[in-house]
C-alpha cells in the first residue's frame, strides 16, 4: 500500500482549507502559510550521523573532567547543547562521549576518556579532556558521540578537528580525505588560547536530534 500520509505542509493546507486552523483577524491564509514557512526556515537540521565504531563501552560514569592531573596531551574543552529540530532544549538527553588518548589508544578495560553526560537545564554539556591522538587505522583525530533523549532518535556520530594536520591546513578542501569523515559539518573549528597557564583548545558541538 502506498504511503498516503501527508507531509506537514500538506497537513497545514488541509487544516486551513477545512477551517480547522484559522489565523487571527488580521491573518489571511497566505500570511499564515508565509508565517509557517518562516518558522520552517528557522528549523534546525538534525546532526549528521556516523558509525559507532568498535570501541564503545556502555556504562561510562558522568564525568565532566576526563583530563587527569599530569595527563599528556593538549588540553581540550568540548562544549555544546542538545536541542530538537525546533531549537528546544532537550534537558533529559544523555551524551555518551569517548575518544582515544593523546597517543591514539582507547581504554578497553576501563573508562578513561569516556563519559556519559547529562546536559544542564539550558541544554548545555561540557567536558575537559585532551586532544585525541592519531592511530594508524583511522588517522584523523576524532571524538565519538552517542546521544539519546526520550521521544527522539538516538544519534551516533563523530566530530573531527579543523586544526588536525590530517586535513593539511585546508579542511574545506580535504574534509573527505581517505573517506574518514562522512560530512564536512562534522569537522569543527578549533579555538586556540594562549596566555596565563597552559595553552588550550576549545570546540563547540551543538547536537540536534529529530523526533522518533
Amino acid at each position, binding site marked *: 500500500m502506498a504511503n498516503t500520509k501527508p507531509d506537514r505542509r500538506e497537513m497545514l493546507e488541509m487544516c486551513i482549507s477545512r477551517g480547522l486552523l484559522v489565523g487571527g483577524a488580521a491573518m489571511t491564509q497566505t500570511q499564515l502559510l508565509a508565517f509557517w514557512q518562516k518558522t520552517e526556515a528557522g528549523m534546525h537540521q538534525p546532526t549528521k550521523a556516523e*558509525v*559507532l*565504531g*568498535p*570501541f*564503545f*563501552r*556502555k*556504562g561510562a560514569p558522568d564525568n565532566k573532567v576526563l583530563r587527569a592531573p599530569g595527563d599528556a596531551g593538549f588540553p581540550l574543552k568540548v562544549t555544546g547543547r542538545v536541542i530538537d529540530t525546533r531549537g528546544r532544549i532537550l534537558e533529559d538527553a544523555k551524551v555518551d562521549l569517548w575518544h582515544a588518548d593523546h597517543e*591514539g*589508544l*582507547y581504554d*578497553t*578495560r576501563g573508562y578513561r576518556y569516556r563519559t556519559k553526560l547529562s546536559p544542564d537545564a539550558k541544554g548545555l554539556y561540557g567536558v575537559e579532556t585532551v586532544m585525541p591522538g592519531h*592511530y*594508524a*587505522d583511522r588517522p584523523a583525530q576524532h571524538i565519538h558521540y*552517542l546521544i539519546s533523549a526520550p521521544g527522539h532518535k*538516538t544519534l*551516533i556520530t563523530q566530530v573531527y578537528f579543523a586544526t588536525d594536520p590530517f586535513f593539511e591546513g585546508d579542511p574545506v578542501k580535504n574534509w573527505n580525505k581517505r573517506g574518514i569523515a562522512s560530512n564536512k559539518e562534522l569537522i569543527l573549528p578549533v579555538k586556540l588560547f594562549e596566555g596565563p597557564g597552559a595553552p588550550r583548545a576549545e570546540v563547540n558541538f551543538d547536537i540536534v536530534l529529530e523526533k522518533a
Partner: protein
Amino acid sequence: MPADRTIPVAAEPGDIFFADGGRHLVVPCRDSHIRTFETATGKLLQDIERKGATVVASNRFVDRGEKKEVRMWDLTAERQMQVLYNLPTGRTVLSPDGKYLAVSNTAERQVRVVDVAAASQKHALADGIGGTAEMIFSPNGELLVSANYDNDIRVWKTRSGELVSKIEDMTGAMFAGEFTPDGKHLVMAGLDEIIYIRDTQSMRVVRKIQGHGETISALAISPDGRTIVTGGFDVRTTRNPVKVVLWDFSSGNVLRKLDAPHRVVSLAFSPDSKWLAMTAGEKEIALWSVAR
C-alpha cells in the same frame, strides 16, 4: 610460537573454512577470489573470481546479481542454487543446516531472516543501534545470536523470530563467538579481553576466562568441544603482532600460546580437532598441529 606450516595465498585471505572432511581449506581473498587448497600439501585446487562474494559455509557462497538479488552458490560445482530478492547488504550468515540465511544491515537496525528453500523472508528482527559485530546460529539452527557494537546481545528463535534473550549487561562489543558443538554453551569474546561462557538455556554467564591480554577479534571451539582458541587484536593498529591462545574448555587453563603477525581475522579447527588454521593479515594460511 610460529606456525607449524603455512600455505601461501596470492591475496590476503579472510574467513577460513575446513571443507570436505578437513581435506580442503576454503578462503575468500582480498582480490575477490575464492581459493580452495589441499590441506595436506597446500596445493591450489580451485580459484574462482566473484566480486562481493561472502563465503557462508565450506561449500556455499553468496554474491549479488545485476538486480542486486542475492544468489547462493554451490562452491565446488560453481552452480547457482537459489536466488533471494529484496535483501539489504550487510553481514550474512547461513545456519549450519543451510535452511536459514540471516542478513544484518546497520542502517536498518534489523536482522532479516530468510527461508532459503522457500526464497522468502521469514522475519525482520529489530536489532541494536550500532551495527552487528558478530552473528551466529546455534549448531541445530534453532537460535540466532546478534552481538551489536552498542554492547547488547540479542538471541532469537530462528523459526518463530521470538526474542528469547536480550543481554544488556555487557560493557564492550563481542567481536567473536561460537556455540559449543553440543549447543549447551555460547562462548563470546571481544573488546574487554574476557571470554564469556553462557548457558544457552538461561543465557547467563556461567564462567569467565581471563588472561588473553588483548582485545579478542576471533574465536573458535574445537569440534570435540575440549578446546577454545582466541585470536587477538592490538587496538593501536591491526598491523601489530598479537597472540593466539588455546584454552582448555573445562578448566579455563592456557594450553598454548601462538604468534600471529597482525590482527587475527579468522580461526578454524579441522573436523578431527587436530589442526588449527588461521588467517591474520598476511598472504598466507597458518596451520598448527594442536592434537591433544
